[in-house]
């Protein structure tokens, strides 16, 4: 496996560089807003690192699916997978390598986000307010990590399954929004059955629960339905599909 090659391949393309540059710019902007706005808007003039992390990591909920899909489904859409497989015909290795490359890039982006959130909170709290607050940061970090990991692996599974940039983007970005909206509607209607159905596909809620060790069947179901099943079908397709 050569994830370094796949990272290089991805980052050498103009489109990927633009996406990455835009992502970093938005993360920096979000960090600045989080660090500056909190001391000015909060009554005690503090800057809470947990809230900063939540705000700064928001762009990643869009960026991570875009990166995962363009890295895994993109080569099928633009047919450049032909060149890859001619040079590296071991499909299992290429697939594993690409998935590792996506996870590595996601981890780096999350680390940068975390660093920027901490820097902005410290600067904002110290210069504009009463100082930074780090109470409850461990919990916030755990939840954000779990939710972004869920976003990434869901996008990976969808990209493997659909192998089409447009379709995979629509599903990877659309499903969490639809599920979230359905959850709100179900809660408002107070229908227990509907709430249960939505919970069975609410990967974000499940990821959050799993991060705290609440591994009940209803929490494992979204993982099975939205990650394991599509990923298994996707891997099967990846191994068998004939490349034109």
């Amino acid at each position, binding site marked *: 496996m050569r994830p370094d090659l796949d990272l290089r391949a991805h980052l050498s393309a103009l489109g990927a560089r633009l996406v990455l540059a835009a992502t970093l710019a938005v993360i920096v902007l979000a960090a600045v807003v989080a660090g500056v706005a909190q001391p000015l808007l909060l009554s005690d003039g503090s800057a809470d690192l947990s809230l900063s992390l939540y705000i700064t990591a928001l762009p990643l909920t869009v960026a991570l699916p875009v990166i995962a899909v363009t890295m895994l489904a993109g080569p099928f859409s633009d*047919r450049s997978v*032909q060149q890859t497989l*001619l*040079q590296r*015909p*071991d499909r299992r290795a290429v697939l594993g390598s690409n998935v590792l490359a996506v996870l590595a890039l996601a981890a780096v982006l999350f680390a940068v986000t975390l660093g920027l959130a901490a820097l902005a909170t410290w600067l904002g709290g110290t210069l504009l307010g009463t100082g930074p607050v780090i109470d409850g940061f461990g919990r916030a970090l755990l939840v954000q990590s779990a939710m972004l990991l869920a976003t990434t692996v869901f996008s990976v599974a969808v990209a493997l399954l659909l192998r089409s940039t447009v379709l995979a983007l629509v599903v990877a970005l659309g499903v969490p929004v639809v599920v979230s909206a359905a959850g709100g509607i179900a809660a408002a209607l107070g229908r227990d059955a509907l709430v249960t159905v939505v919970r069975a596909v609410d990967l974000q809620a499940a990821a959050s629960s799993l991060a705290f060790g609440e591994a009940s069947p209803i929490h494992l179901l979204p993982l099975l339905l939205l990650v394991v099943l599509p990923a298994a079908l996707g891997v099967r397709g990846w191994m068998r599909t*004939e490349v*034109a």
Partner: protein
Amino acid sequence: MLTTDPSAPALEIRGLTKRFGAHTAVDDLSFASHPGTVTGFLGPNGAGKSTTLRMLTGLARPDVGVALVGGRPYRELEHPGRIIGVMLDATTLHRGRTGLATLRLTARTLGMPLARAEEMLETVGLTAAARTRVGAYSYGMRQRLGLAVALMGDPAILVLDEPANGLDPEGIRWMRRLLRDFADAGGTVLLSSHQLREVEATVDRLVVISRGRLVREGTLAELRPDHATRVGAEIPAALTAALDRHGIAWAPRPDGLLDVGLPPIDLGRLAVRERIVLTALTAAESEGLEELFFQLTEEPADSSTTAPSTPAPAPALAS
């Protein structure tokens, strides 16, 4: 390990068959390419050339048969780019990378020195466009870049699908020289084309397919019509079965006779040995290689596509 027998074929297609639903794209195809030769893989559009090359390079799986590179399936080669350079479709080169980045990435993948990227750009005449993105390349430039990718690993075998497409006359001459030199240095070249003229000046051997089937194979001299025979048999099926058994290429003619890739005297001997009653046996008319190619690869007459009996109206004259 690849086979080290110098007389062994570098590329071998053995009984390859590929079906897409009811359509048989490649039908029991067998041929081989040996070191030091340029083999032209010829057939009209849709004959099954690209499908065969995709199976040879592991991009598609055959339903029946095997395709071997140095005695092994492509997918089992550890570093295929160091053994076999392949250019199937230059439009699959990533549009968002520069030519130089494309070749550097290939060099890293194949474990070649990065400096070879510049060397290859110079070889294919793209030095001036090194930092231009592939998306801005013309089709001919992409073909050149695709060839550079294929040559990057310094392979002993080249497989090229319609490499002359998009090249200007000077580019075609350059490509011919390059392939000839490659083969003369002991390399093996398999290049596909749907135009005989394009490959006639370069190839040593021709493999002609039509509708997925091998219709003729041999050196250019062997395939010249003066080596062919037009023949008829009392039981045509017995004759075609005997020709197939002996691996002799044949093609049906609209008049019910067959064009067979064997001199008349040899065909006569074969008929005697196989106890086949011949109804006609003449040397095929010397119509040139290209005419023979058209004959071999023409689609059978189909009642649904025959011309209507009423002629089409002439275009109106401007007043």
